[in-house]
């Protein structure tokens, strides 16, 4: 696949370093701030405290209080302020401490940021990145655990991108900051300690291009964020049973790469979307719709492994029951293969 070769090509750029997902995000921020003095950071507790999840630790010391700015707890206000900065020569990167709080800023994001270029008739661009730290598994309860990944599907003018590994986090965050469009950049708080190789000299990924992270021929799994490593784990379990799964990390939720997924499904005849969100109105449902409109293989019955229609609970037992795990993914695929035959 071209996507795979691009990724391999990217890693030829320099010496890859092992780092955590958290370190990869910090490295992307620092590298972009070193490269461009217009890049500034805003958010709650990001300066002296280094961020609630320590993704901006040390940046105040290197770049100073003019470029690493603590904000009051005023999401709608500081996203609006960042918009004002973005249209007057800066390239702000805002941190939303928990993705749930994107909704506090949703007027600024949906009514202002996303439409600003359009309603001015193209007089300006909006180079604004909004990092949102989302996802369950942290036992943070129902108001601090959303991924928020599909909330902005109905908002043209935004790009939404989700990082599923240290290298993806590094590359996609740098790409987001360099884009002249507003980008919601989603991080999963359950992945900060995950380690992986990151090439800081590699080329930047293309907007809207998914990545095939495991090649396979029996079933296509499309996933984002934490669901990517869980899908990979499910694929390993299934491999031992002779089932060969292809895993696609969508990376971009807007725009959705239905082309890469469609090509994969045309080889595997099977599609499972794995999402840390309820299914209705989300990217999984949208992806299946797009693929259906493009034309799926005759016997394909797309399936979804999602969060049931409930708010996430605090109790570890209930939270784990809600968020798809490798075994749930594997079970769905076994059922699908059994039902359709090999």
């Amino acid at each position: 696949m071209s996507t795979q070769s691009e990724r391999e090509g990217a890693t030829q750029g320099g010496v890859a370093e092992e780092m955590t997902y958290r370190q990869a995000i910090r490295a992307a921020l620092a590298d972009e701030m070193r490269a461009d003095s217009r890049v500034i950071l805003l958010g709650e507790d990001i300066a002296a405290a280094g961020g609630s999840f320590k993704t901006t630790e040390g940046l105040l010391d290197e770049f100073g209080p003019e470029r690493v700015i603590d904000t009051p707890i005023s999401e709608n206000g500081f996203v609006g302020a960042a918009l004002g900065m973005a249209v007057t020569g800066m390239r702000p990167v805002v941190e939303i401490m928990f993705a749930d709080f994107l909704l506090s800023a949703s007027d600024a994001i949906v009514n202002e940021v996303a439409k600003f270029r359009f309603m001015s008739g193209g007089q300006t661009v909006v180079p604004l990145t909004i990092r949102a730290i989302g996802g369950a598994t942290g036992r943070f309860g129902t108001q601090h655990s959303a991924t928020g990944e599909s909330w902005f599907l109905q908002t043209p003018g935004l790009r939404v991108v989700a990082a599923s590994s240290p290298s993806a986090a590094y590359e996609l965050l740098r790409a987001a900051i360099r884009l002249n469009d507003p980008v919601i950049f989603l991080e999963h708080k359950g992945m900060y300690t995950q380690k992986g190789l990151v090439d800081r000299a590699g080329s930047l990924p293309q907007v809207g291009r998914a990545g095939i992270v495991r090649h396979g021929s029996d079933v296509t799994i499309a996933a984002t964020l934490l669901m990517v490593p869980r899908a990979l784990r499910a694929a390993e379990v299934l491999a031992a049973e002779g089932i060969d799964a292809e895993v696609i990390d969508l990376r971009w939720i807007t725009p959705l790469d239905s082309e890469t997924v469609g090509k994969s499904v045309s080889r595997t005849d099977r599609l499972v979307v794995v999402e840390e969100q309820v299914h209705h109105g989300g990217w999984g449902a949208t992806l299946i719709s797009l693929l259906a409109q493009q034309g799926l293989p005759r016997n394909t019955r797309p399936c979804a492994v999602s969060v049931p229609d409930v708010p996430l609970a605090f109790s570890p037992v209930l939270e784990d029951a809600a968020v798809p795990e490798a075994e749930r993914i594997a079970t769905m695929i076994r059922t699908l293969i059994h039902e359709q035959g090999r």
Partner: protein
Amino acid sequence: MSSQKIYSPDRRQWLRTMLLIRCFEDKVQQLFMQGLVPGTTHLCQGQEAVAVGAISAITSADYLTITYRGHGQALARGIDPEAAFAEIMGRETGVCKGRGGSMHLTDFSRGLIGSFAIVGAGLPVALGAAMSAKLHGATSVALTFFGDGATNIGTFHEALNMASVWKAPVVFICENNLYGEYSPIRTTTPVDDLAIRATAYAMPGVTVDGTDADAVYAATRTAVERARAGEGPTLLECKTYRYSGHSRTDPAKYRKPGELESWKARDPIKRLGEALATEGIMSVADQEAMRQEVQDLINAAAERAAAAPWPKREEIDRYVYAE
């Protein structure tokens, strides 16, 4: 002060701009009745002295954000009346190529970086522009205009708080026209003088007569000088009155009898015109000639705009993303 000062303390120019705004708004109303303005309009007749007084106190290097009742500020900032009419009529030659409309007159070439139809949304954006200038080491300031209704929405409080904490060079200008849409201010707000709200954010709060262009100019100048000197923001409340209803469908039946007439007796254009005549700066005859010149200009601009082409249907997806 910046050497780029193009906004004049010349009160004859103020009068001309106020006449321009009045004629423009009357024309919009007329075009609306003729079916040439789609949707709705929010007119500002009666509020001209706020736009002209305040914008006369800043330079071309400064920023401003305005609201859906923003035609007056846009014209005071020098927007081309023909491009403004064309925008309001949804034409490709509009200042926003017809994508924005009456509520979103925006002209980046004049530092007019946004016009907002969400109450209160322009305040944080102006704050951000002011912070940009500060971070760049520029001396630009930002003015942000909003109505009395906006002082009850979160972004007002969030923006004033941040601006004060960051000592941002921004001036918050509240046009208190006594009605938040259809509701008299006392039904929604427990204080009459909204400038008092500045106290909570440790910044000066000043109330002026918004029908007096001289008073608005003087108060804005003081606030702008303070902002430029790095001393932070000011909340400036201008008491004013809109002669029309909230929007096109509002006959403004909520007004007390005689209220409109009493405000019209203090009409800002009449006040300035009388002052200029009394002070021997401009004769009544010269003012009448100016009014006629402005009326002719507005008529011609509206006529050209009404003949302008519509956007092309196939260009529906332009300007959504950077090209």
